[in-house]
């Protein structure tokens, strides 16, 4: 009775893991080992950190049935703030990082507050803040690339323990803390309850407004983490940062098994999904694929992954098959 439930709820994660392993091995074999070289793994893992962080940032908002369209510009702005503070006002790194994290969190909090106050749907609010922040990002960095800050930060981005880049470790730890937050703390559970059934949550003494506020704020914090990782892994900061975050932030959690209707989280799923997508980048470089081919294959990979998991799920859920949902 226990085991099946365990699997039933983790089918997507499971099949994603399978796909990841297969893809990984395929790359190792076809690159006759090059992929296992320190440099390759380094690169692979380093740029895995950001997709994970922004995926989680989107996930926490998805779990209350809303979206955060501002992930990109929130990240862009907090990166810009950190860069400017360090480069132009030569603040110490730790302080800049703190302010970066704080500002991102604040932006999230503002999103949350606006959603609660105006009772407008989060989609519109974050679209609004997205636009506003786009403006601020330009104000902060104009069209230049800022990199006149202590090189110890980019160097930190390149350092690693046993081949694991620090910044990936940061991302993973964040993920673990997040899963503890959702599984073990009352606040976490309440946020999920709101996502699962707001009316019921309310009648059970949960304040949905608080949950919404918390979810958006948390999303901000996670974006802050993503920004720190970004600034540590890039040669500099300019207004293009965050430009490609939006779809990535949705892709990871949703491929990872999170429902857009809210109430679910899938932290491991998000992480592994980010990994699968990252494998495609590697393949692109490895086989010098044409980007159009890459896009095509990303499309196909995504589809097949989910189709497979769906097929597995339905096979295992026969016993108490519910209504076939078309979400």
């Amino acid at each position, binding site marked *: 009775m226990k085991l099946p439930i365990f699997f039933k709820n983790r089918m997507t994660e499971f099949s994603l893991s399978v796909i990841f392993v297969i893809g990984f091995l395929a790359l190792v074999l076809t*690159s006759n080992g*090059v*992929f296992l*070289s320190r*440099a*390759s793994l*380094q*690169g*692979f893992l*380093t*740029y895995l950190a*950001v997709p994970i962080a922004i995926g989680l940032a989107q996930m926490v908002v998805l779990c209350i049935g809303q979206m955060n369209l501002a992930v990109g510009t929130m990240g862009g702005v907090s990166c810009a703030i950190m860069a400017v503070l360090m480069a132009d006002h030569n603040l110490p790194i730790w302080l800049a990082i703190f302010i970066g994290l704080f500002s991102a969190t604040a932006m999230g909090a503002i999103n949350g507050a606006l959603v609660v106050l105006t009772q407008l749907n989060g989609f519109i609010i974050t679209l609004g803040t997205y636009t506003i922040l786009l403006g601020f990002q*330009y104000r902060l960095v*104009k*069209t*230049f*690339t800022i*990199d006149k800050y202590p090189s110890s930060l980019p160097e930190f981005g*390149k350092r690693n323990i046993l081949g694991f880049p620090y910044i990936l470790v940061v991302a993973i730890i964040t993920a673990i803390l997040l899963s503890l937050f959702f599984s073990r703390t009352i606040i976490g559970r309440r946020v999920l309850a709101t996502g699962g059934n707001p009316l019921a949550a309310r009648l059970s003494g949960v304040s949905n407004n608080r949950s919404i506020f918390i979810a958006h704020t948390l999303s901000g914090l996670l974006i802050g983490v993503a920004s720190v990782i*970004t600034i540590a*892994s*890039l*040669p*500099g*900061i*300019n*207004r*293009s*940062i*965050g*430009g*490609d975050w939006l779809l990535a932030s949705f892709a990871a959690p949703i491929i990872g098994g999170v429902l857009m209707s809210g109430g679910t989280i899938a932290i491991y799923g998000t992480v592994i999904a980010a990994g699968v997508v990252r494998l495609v*980048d*590697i393949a*692109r*470089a*490895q086989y*010098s694929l044409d*980007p*159009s081919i890459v896009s095509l294959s990303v499309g196909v990979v995504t589809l097949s992954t989910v189709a497979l998991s769906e097929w597995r799920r339905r096979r295992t859920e026969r016993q108490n098959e519910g209504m076939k949902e078309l979400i």
Partner: protein
Amino acid sequence: SSSGDSAGSADGFGAIKVALVPGGAHPYFQPWKDGGAAAVAEFGVGGTEFNETGEWDQTKHNAAIDAMAAQGYNAFGVFGVSPTDINTTFAGLKAKGFAVGSLASCPGGYDIVKEPQKNSADFCLSTDTGKAAYLAATAVIKEMGGKGNLVHLTGNAVDANTIRRMDGVKQAIAETGGKVKLLTTITDIDSDLQSATKAVTDLLAAKGKQINGIVTTAYNPAVAATDGVSSTKLPIKVIAIDDDQKILDAIKSGVISGTVVQNPWGQGYVGSWVLSALGSKKCTMNTPGLYVDSGSFLVTKDNVDTYNDTRQATSKEILAAFQNEYMTCK
């Protein structure tokens, strides 16, 4: 913005307000402002305004141009987001009787040199992107010692300019008679620095050992390649593009071999004058739609401090050429 000294100055330039409208925000276009300002100061042009609200979307770009027109700007120096679409926009502006110049890129879809009459703008003052790319490629090939594997990093694959650049690089390689091989061309990584850096890292990780040279013909890839090569310490020669401070520093410190700079200042400076001359009906183009190369220059350790003077000089020459050869003035 800056405004002319004598509004109704003798040659009527004072009545001309030039709108300089790039496709969107990009470091490349920033010198347009100074170029325009210089023209205002020097020739008493009524004023120039720089508007980068196009955000690389042809629809928004058109809207930006219309907004300028509504505000009473009567001469337009435009970089088209989509080379094949911009001619339609030009035609519209001409129909309203404005002076129009295509700056930094020419309408696409035909050979501008062979059939200038197809250009709906009065003229096109731009770097020959193909030529610039060729220049960069030959330079890096020289650095590579005339042989080895070359990689080309560039922007949007379905943009006429990008394709011209790719052809330029291919031409340079062809001239080596097979001694240099084009290992791969990575496109579509100019959209943001993160993708560019990621792509370069993956490339160097997968193929670093085989690569002897990298030529970049887009901004973010240039920054990324500079950093990638310096951090991996691979013996790879790099020729970047444009003269962002970061890149100039890299040249000075010898991380990369050089960069190919174009002439946006000249485009703003000369462009503003020509537009004013046309707008004030003082001069007319001898060959409407004429294409003029605004020049591209290879910058290396040797000339990194002096190239700007060269470039300014060239601009003056181009201006003279307009005044004496390309136009007839009363």
